[in-house]
């Protein structure tokens, strides 16, 4: 934890604060169908063309049920579109490596994963996906799912801000404006910047390079039919072979990575994700990617304040998020910098920390910060392998997801997730003082609290239920890469990541099996839509209510008391639900590591 790293943390925080307000005001205009921006001369005609092609009347708004239906229909159709592309990959263009079709379970898992903004990957990108699949099958959902998330957050904020209104906006107008006025322009600039740092963007076949120093490798001998040869005892017969070339991945990476980060999708172009030197070439590209990842989630709190005419409330929500972010970074950074005593006893330099699964250009701090940021937001891109983190270092990303992805959170998803906690917090405060709880002048009634609780229960049920099932089944244990408590952590992390729509992994788990692909697919689907539907119902209910003027007895939704209460609610709900599981996973592993136990 040296001064350079403290400085970098300060620069990151400063950049995040600086970008929040201008971007928030921009989003405010994007989410207003009549809002004007300086991009109008270019984008206005495109927007109008879209409405004509889709036969949408931008002046007509939806009630919450119509809005929900449009969102579900769009998600279903685009999910099937991707499923079809992945199954037909071999027959589609832009496939220079002649990669075959995906198995049905993997195609289902992947299509669901990208539709739900999870981007869990049971496959290695460069060995599985053609350029066409990457661009049209996967990157398309990086835009779609991000736009859907922001649209829903926008609809919920409208529900809070309006009174006695039946409608909460037009779904098609919202996603069109978000894609063309917010995501696309930033992505073009971001992608070109990433190329300047060394990221690739081309359509040529993978490059075959002649190794600078050819290597001799030992491989199993095969007979003339290509079958592996074994000796009389059944042991493989090994022969030496010269390895003279290296095949280097190519493709349209930058355009996909820009939206992968900005839309908090996180699905890697390559298997190593943002640890891959092409996918994250320099510390600066790493910094900018981390900023792109949190900026929209952060800016949406400003939009909330603006829309509800209570900017202090927006900043209070921001402060609560920031507090939890900072706590996570500190713990993760400290744990990774301290390193692994088992390895240090063997002679690994103590000052270097835990470098297994980390890249030299990022080191301990950039890896810990990235791990925290990517799990605060529901991004799930990784620039180091979380599976190889120290137990407490790995606990932070795991718990971040288990809070419900509300620490800035995924684009849109973070804000609407946090608003659920806000309503729960004012409800608890109301109970404590014995008054009808209200939020920004809206009375919170039984129906609203039921919808909020439904969203919580679904998350806990999915994570703990599926983890327990997998732990008790042969198919679950068959996928493990590590034994002991770390094995439990691998399974717990997988279903947490799926239900939380994060997508990062303790990636040693071999999840590309029919059982894992299917259960994780269901986990992701219910984790996304099981939360969104009650939430839109809540938006509909709130929009119909009258706003009662604040009185002296009103619990203020800004200021220190509110922030403490909100953080307390988030941490308490997470801890009450998941502490038992965490205790027998990463926490017990931490003590075993200090004892020098290995499995």
């Amino acid at each position, binding site marked *: 934890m040296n001064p350079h790293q403290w400085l970098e943390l300060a620069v990151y925080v400063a950049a995040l604060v600086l970008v929040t307000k201008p971007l928030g005001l921009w989003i405010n205009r994007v989410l207003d169908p009549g809002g004007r921006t300086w991009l109008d001369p270019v984008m206005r005609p495109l927007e109008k063309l879209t409405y004509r092609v889709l036969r949408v009347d931008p002046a007509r708004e939806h009630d919450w049920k119509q809005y929900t239906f449009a969102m579900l*229909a769009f998600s279903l159709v685009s999910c099937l579109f991707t499923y079809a592309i992945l199954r037909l990959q071999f027959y589609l263009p832009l496939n220079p490596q002649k990669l075959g079709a995906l198995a049905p379970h993997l195609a289902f898992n992947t299509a669901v994963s990208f539709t739900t903004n999870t981007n869990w990957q049971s496959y290695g990108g460069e060995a599985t996906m053609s350029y066409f699949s990457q661009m049209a099958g996967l990157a398309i959902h990086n835009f779609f799912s991000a736009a859907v998330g922001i649209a829903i957050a926008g609809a919920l904020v409208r529900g809070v801000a309006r009174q006695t209104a039946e409608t909460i906006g037009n779904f098609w107008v919202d996603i069109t404006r978000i894609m063309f006025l917010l995501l696309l322009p930033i992505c073009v600039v971001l992608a070109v910047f990433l190329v300047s740092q060394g990221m690739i963007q081309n359509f040529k076949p993978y490059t075959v390079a002649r190794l600078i120093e050819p290597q001799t490798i030992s491989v199993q001998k095969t007979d003339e039919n290509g079958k592996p040869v074994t000796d009389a005892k059944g042991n493989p017969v090994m022969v030496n072979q010269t390895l003279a070339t290296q095949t280097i991945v190519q493709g349209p990476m930058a355009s996909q990575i820009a939206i992968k980060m900005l839309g908090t999708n996180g699905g890697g172009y390559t298997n190593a994700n943002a*640890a891959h030197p092409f996918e994250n070439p320099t510390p600066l590209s790493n910094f900018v990617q981390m900023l792109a990842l949190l900026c929209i989630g952060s800016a949406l709190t400003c939009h909330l304040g603006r829309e509800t005419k209570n900017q202090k409330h927006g900043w209070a929500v921001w402060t609560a998020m920031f507090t939890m972010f900072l706590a996570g970074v500190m713990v993760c950074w400290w744990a990774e910098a301290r390193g692994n005593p088992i390895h240090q006893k063997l002679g690994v330099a103590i000052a270097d920390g835990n470098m297994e*699964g980390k890249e030299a250009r990022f080191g301990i701090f950039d890896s810990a910060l990235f791990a925290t940021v990517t799990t605060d937001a529901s991004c799930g891109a990784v620039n180091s392998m979380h599976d190889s983190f120290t137990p407490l270092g790995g606990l932070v990303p795991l718990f971040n997801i288990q809070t419900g992805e509300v620490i800035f959170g995924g684009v849109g998803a973070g804000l609407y997730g946090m608003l659920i906690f806000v309503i729960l917090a004012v409800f608890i405060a109301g109970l404590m003082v014995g008054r009808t709880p209200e939020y920004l002048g809206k009375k919170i009634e039984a129906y609203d609290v039921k919808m909020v609780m439904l969203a919580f229960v679904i998350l806990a049920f999915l994570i703990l239920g599926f983890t327990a099932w997998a732990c008790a089944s042969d198919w679950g244990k068959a996928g493990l890469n590590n034994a002991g408590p770390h094995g439990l952590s691998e399974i717990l992390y997988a279903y947490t990541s799926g239900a939380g729509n994060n997508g990062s992994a303790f990636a040693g788990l071999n999840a590309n099996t029919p059982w894992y692909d299917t259960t994780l697919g269901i986990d992701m689907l219910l984790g996304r839509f099981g939360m969104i539907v009650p939430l839109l119902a809540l938006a509909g209910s709130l929009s119909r209510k009258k706003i009662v003027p604040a009185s002296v007895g009103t619990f203020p939704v800004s200021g220190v008391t509110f922030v403490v209460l909100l953080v307390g609610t988030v941490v308490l709900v997470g801890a009450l639900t998941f502490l038992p599981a965490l205790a027998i996973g990463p926490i017990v592993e931490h003590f075993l590591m200090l004892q020098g136990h290995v499995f």
Partner: protein
Amino acid sequence: MKNIFAEFGRSFMATLFFAVILCGLYPLLVFGLAHLLFPRQANGSLLVDGSGTVRGSALIAQDFTAPGYFHPRPSAAGAYGYDAANSGGSNLGPTSQALAAQIAQRLAAYRAENGLPANAVVPADAVTASGSGLDPDISPQNAALQAPRVAKARGLPEQQVRELVRQNTRRRQWGIFGEPRVNVMTLNFALDELARHFALDPPPQK
């Protein structure tokens, strides 16, 4: 009912229409700008030798085992390591016996190669697999420990090798971001280029 069909039809049209713009025009626009402004990077920062053969990428590690080359970090990418079409880490956890055994073995090999005492403390990056398995960088401490071996194997003065290491060292970007590091790929490439120049154009005899 009619509304339901209309909404599905609209979803279908929207998927296709947005696909043309976001999956067709947008990547092409980035492709055009990238090749106009940064063609070398957009094509993978390839290292091409004097004969025009591609020898690798400045960003992607290859394996080096001869004493005359700097050795990169261990790799878990693909079956034999350093597979640039199959990136990834070991994903072994902190209490993994397999990982502890690997590290012990790498420590012994590293100390033997570089003539270090049997209990010498070794930089962590030299004995741990990177996240991608393709990490082209090593720490400056790691490079400093390898420099004498490389100089000896190549018959070069150690000072000259250290100078090449310095030229291939990158500081923290803008003085703030990341960690200082030495690029093994460009460094080894430069060592070979140096040898080739000497072969073609030997230094003048006194």
